[in-house]
């Protein structure tokens, strides 16, 4: 089969599977968050936690619950990682205090940036009871925020946007856990390991020695992709044959990491009672996501090499995985992004810089897209001189301020963080190379952290106190500042009365709106990041 044909078939296969599950999965998620009934296990959880599941919260309480839960999660995970050396099932592995803080922040913010290597930094206990738990919970928090923001749009004249504890619990119990159980078993059948055997040394065929790793890998791998987390059990992540043994598991993992985020526009349409809104959002995500995938695959087939890529996947499936992982907030890798061609590496960067909304992380993609829709409606309103409205809600001064602030947080963190670090010797000492490629390395680290992606140009020696702390700060602010602004926005939108649609209302479900939305997303990213991309990947490609 010619290379271009198999590459085209590969992309078509991924898109077709996602299209097939879009409606059932999106509908299921909608039912999860609108059902008035609680499952028995959920009632037990609410009773033990001490919350009333039938009382909804104002935006302030919702935000306080979310922030409390995240702070408690970070402190608990940090403590667990530091205490690891004293705990059983840890294979004698340990982490520095600063590495542990970076890791705790990283997993709670759904970033899963790893400045440690799985084989030496984390034993089975913290992988399963610490990191994998946050793989579920950070994804469920993302879903909760997305649903709360949509409730603000869908409701009127109420100050209630839902109950954080209920949204979190349902996301775990009804969506992520069932999918992860099925996914983990599927991965085991396809060859991913799942055991509790300590690593052991064998005498190889030719008389040498080799360490064979063990661990509960499949159970972690499934949620790592489904929750768009991306933190590898092993240093090589999804390039490691024990995490991703074949072309089939590679396809499964790509579908897992895109599945929930690409189904959420359907949920959005159902929640606001207008499926056309969801369809327009899905098409926007598809244009950006598939466009990036095709572009990256073409670039890598033309300029890429097999350096840092696995034979069982090849160039095309490495590019597809890379595009999927940077278009979501996953950050898992099945190939070394730093060894992509300069333009290919630049496209991976650009994909994250779009704001991870094609289709984005679990929940985060949906609320990032709503931010861009608010901005687009506002710009369109300015152009034609009408009051901007979205689904009958006025986008006034306060609303647009909240949306615009949440939009600038990530670029500010990325560009200031990378810019300052590039002139500090304490940071540049971590770079594996100089010149444009070195700049790309640092830019990639801050883009990945601020966007909560977690993939890396892994030549960077990131396990230093400076980078651990600065990148942890970028991850924290990149996650929680937009979340708080959007929960506030949800509160304001929910209080408004819906205005009736008139002849002057700009529809937000049409092809022209989709075109405008795509243009706004691309122009905002281009204006923000073009200079930095020109100094890094573009300069390297031209040299």
């Amino acid at each position, binding site marked *: 089969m010619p290379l271009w044909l198999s590459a085209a078939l590969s992309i078509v296969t991924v898109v077709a599977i996602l299209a097939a599950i879009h409606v059932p999965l999106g509908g299921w998620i909608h039912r999860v968050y609108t059902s008035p009934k609680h499952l028995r296990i959920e009632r037990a959880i609410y009773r033990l936690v001490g919350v009333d599941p039938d009382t909804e919260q104002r935006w302030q309480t919702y935000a306080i619950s979310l922030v409390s839960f995240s702070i408690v999660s970070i402190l608990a995970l940090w403590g667990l990682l530091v205490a690891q050396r004293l705990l059983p099932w840890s294979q004698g592995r340990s982490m520095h205090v600063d590495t542990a803080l970076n890791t705790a922040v990283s997993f709670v913010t759904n970033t899963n940036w790893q400045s440690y290597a799985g084989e030496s930094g984390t034993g089975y206990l913290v992988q399963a009871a610490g990191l994998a738990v946050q793989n579920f919970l950070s994804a469920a928090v993302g879903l909760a925020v997305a649903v709360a923001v949509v409730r603000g749009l869908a409701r009127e004249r109420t100050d209630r946007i839902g109950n954080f*504890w209920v949204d979190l619990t349902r996301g775990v119990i009804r969506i992520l856990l069932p999918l992860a159980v099925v996914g983990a078993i599927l991965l085991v059948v396809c060859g991913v390991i799942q055991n509790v055997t300590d690593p052991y040394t064998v005498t190889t065929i030719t008389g040498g020695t080799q360490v064979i790793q063990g661990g509960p890998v499949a159970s972690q791998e499934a949620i790592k992709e489904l929750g768009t987390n991306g933190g590898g059990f092993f240093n090589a992540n999804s390039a490691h044959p024990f995490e991703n043994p074949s072309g089939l598991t590679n396809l499964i993992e790509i579908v897992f990491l895109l599945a929930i985020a690409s189904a959420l526009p359907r949920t959005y349409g159902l929640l606001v009672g207008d499926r056309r809104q969801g369809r327009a959002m899905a098409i926007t995500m598809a244009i950006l996501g598939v466009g990036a995938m095709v572009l990256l695959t073409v670039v890598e087939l033309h300029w890429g090499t097999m350096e840092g890529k696995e034979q069982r996947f090849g160039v095309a499936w490495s590019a597809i995985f890379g595009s999927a992982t940077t278009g979501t907030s996953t950050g898992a890798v099945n190939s070394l992004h730093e060894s992509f061609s300069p333009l290919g590496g630049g496209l991976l960067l650009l994909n994250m810089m779009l704001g991870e909304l094609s289709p984005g992380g679990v929940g985060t993609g949906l609320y990032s897209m709503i931010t861009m829709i608010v901005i687009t409606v506002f710009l369109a309103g300015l152009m034609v001189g009408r009051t901007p409205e979205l689904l009958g809600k006025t986008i006034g001064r306060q609303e647009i301020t909240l949306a615009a602030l949440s939009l600038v947080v990530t670029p500010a963190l990325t560009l200031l963080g990378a810019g300052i670090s590039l002139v500090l010797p304490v940071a540049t000492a971590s770079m594996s190379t100089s010149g444009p490629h070195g700049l790309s390395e640092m830019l990639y680290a801050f883009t990945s952290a601020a966007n909560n992606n977690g993939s890396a140009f892994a030549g960077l020696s990131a396990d230093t106190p400076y980078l651990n702390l600065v990148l942890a700060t970028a991850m924290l602010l990149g996650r929680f500042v937009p979340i708080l602004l959007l929960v506030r926005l949800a509160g304001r939108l929910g209080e408004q009365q819906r205005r009736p649609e008139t002849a002057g209302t700009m529809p937000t479900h049409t092809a022209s709106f989709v075109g405008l939305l795509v243009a706004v997303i691309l122009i905002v990213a281009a204006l923000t990041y073009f200079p930095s991309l020109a100094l890094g990947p573009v300069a390297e490609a031209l040299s």
Partner: protein
Amino acid sequence: MLRQSLAAVRLLLLMTVLLGVAYPAVITLVARLDAPAADGSLVTVDGHVVGSALLGQAAAGPEWFQPRPSVSDYAGDTSGGSNLSPNSQAQADARAKREADLKAANPDAVGPIPEDALTASASGLEPYISVAYATWQIPRVAAARGVDRSVLERLVADCTDHALLGYIGQDGVNVTRLNAALAGLPKG
């Protein structure tokens, strides 16, 4: 804030029991139904475990098929690759050295050196090489072992895993299984 924090602590504990203990325990138990896969698809020679079919192994000597270059030399307790830019001088030097070494070790090889022989894998543990690279090595292995090339061609074909439907992944020859099969051949 305090009330919310107490709820947060309690929920985190409950979720840790459910997601961090019960979930992996159940999956580990269910995985026993397919123990060979869950334990890492181990390969045995003469009854001894000699490695995993999913992991490449260092195999020095002309009588063995060579896996792809590995930055960690297939150690198993570290994984990862070079992270070199394909445009960098370091990468150009590494390629040139691999090319020279392969040419010296394979005087009878036919055709250009396949790309996967000149580039390090991402994991450093890749068990597969391209069919072209396996075929390219046959003259050397046949000469070193004194076996007929057709025997090796058959073994290579036996150890080739084809891409699902012809395009999901790539065809590859599993070098670990191939060398295990060579180890089982009667000594020539």
